[in-house]
């Protein structure tokens, strides 16, 4: 099964067909995704700036990393759940979307980042607390994390700006008869000015 036919199958399931047709569920899922970005994004930033030593120095790294870990997990779970729900709705369209592909690549890089720095930084905070200075490895981890998450936001916003190839795709948002809601595109910028 090719990736494209898999994407077509996913979006054609009854669950995602219903989700796509609902004028309320999709916006709510998208809003919840944004809420999760806000909650999760703030925590990532605080942790990263602490690792860089820019702020919150009255807290040990252990306190920051260990106390934020459960909250970050909840936020990440919320992000991924909402993301999967939205991606499933428009899987075929997203298959052609360059920003979506970029975002998935960045997400994979986030996983790689976690694997690389887990042992030396995130699970090693007790040793880092005792170090006279924050080690370069921890600062590198924080810098890369900031770059990755900022890029994820940029790629995520970009997804909505790419017009789907209408001649190739089989399902659009709110395409169910009777659902009167407009397409997802922002009304602020007329379609002809969007790229």
């Amino acid at each position, binding site marked *: 099964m090719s990736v494209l036919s898999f994407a077509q199958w996913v979006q054609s399931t009854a669950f995602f067909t219903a989700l796509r047709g609902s004028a309320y569920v999709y*916006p709510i899922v998208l809003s919840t995704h*944004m809420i999760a970005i806000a*909650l999760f994004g703030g*925590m990532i930033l*605080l942790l990263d700036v602490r690792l860089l030593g820019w*702020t919150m120095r009255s807290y040990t790294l252990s306190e920051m990393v260990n106390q934020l870990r459960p909250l970050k997990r909840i936020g990440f779970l919320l992000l991924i759940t909402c993301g999967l729900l939205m991606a499933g709705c428009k899987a075929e369209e997203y298959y052609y979307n360059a920003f979506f592909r970029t975002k998935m690549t960045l997400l994979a890089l986030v996983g790689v980042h976690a694997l690389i720095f887990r042992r030396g930084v995130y699970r090693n905070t007790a040793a880092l607390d005792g170090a006279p200075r924050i080690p370069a490895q921890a600062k590198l981890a924080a810098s890369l994390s900031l770059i990755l998450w900022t890029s994820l*936001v940029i790629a995520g916003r970009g997804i909505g700006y790419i017009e789907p190839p209408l001649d190739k795709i089989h399902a659009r948002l709110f395409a169910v008869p009777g659902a009167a809601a407009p397409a*997802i*595109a922002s009304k602020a*910028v007329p379609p002809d000015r969007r790229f």
Partner: protein
Amino acid sequence: MLVYDPSTNPLNNNEWSFPLLEIIHIASFAVSVGTIAVVDLRLLGLGMRRQSSAQLLKDTAPWTLIALAIVLMSGPMIFSSDPNMYLNNPGFIFKMEALLVAIVYNYTIHRKVAQSNPSPVVGALVGGVSLALWVSVVFGGLFIAFT
């Protein structure tokens, strides 16, 4: 309605400016709401329990303020791209009302209570209201595109 022609606005005459502004808006509200949420979650007793809420507020407040300033600059610029549409949009009106309440609440009741290291019940109430207000603002923002 306003005597203003949005088609002269650079935001509407340049492919990249509008999405770039949106990204700045999103990234900075993530920082402002996220740092407020850390204090809220502490007030609710759900995280960072080894620090006091007063300490957390003191350390996150500069980040909240800087990010909020960027949000409040990028927001009106986005608004300027199509004022009449926004003024007639129920999602936008709701967002502005929620935002006004959220900001006033954040710098009055929320701040006073967080500084006083409140009892769990008061803390949970104040933190919960704060989270609900900021969640409403983000929801309102998203629904601009759907209403």
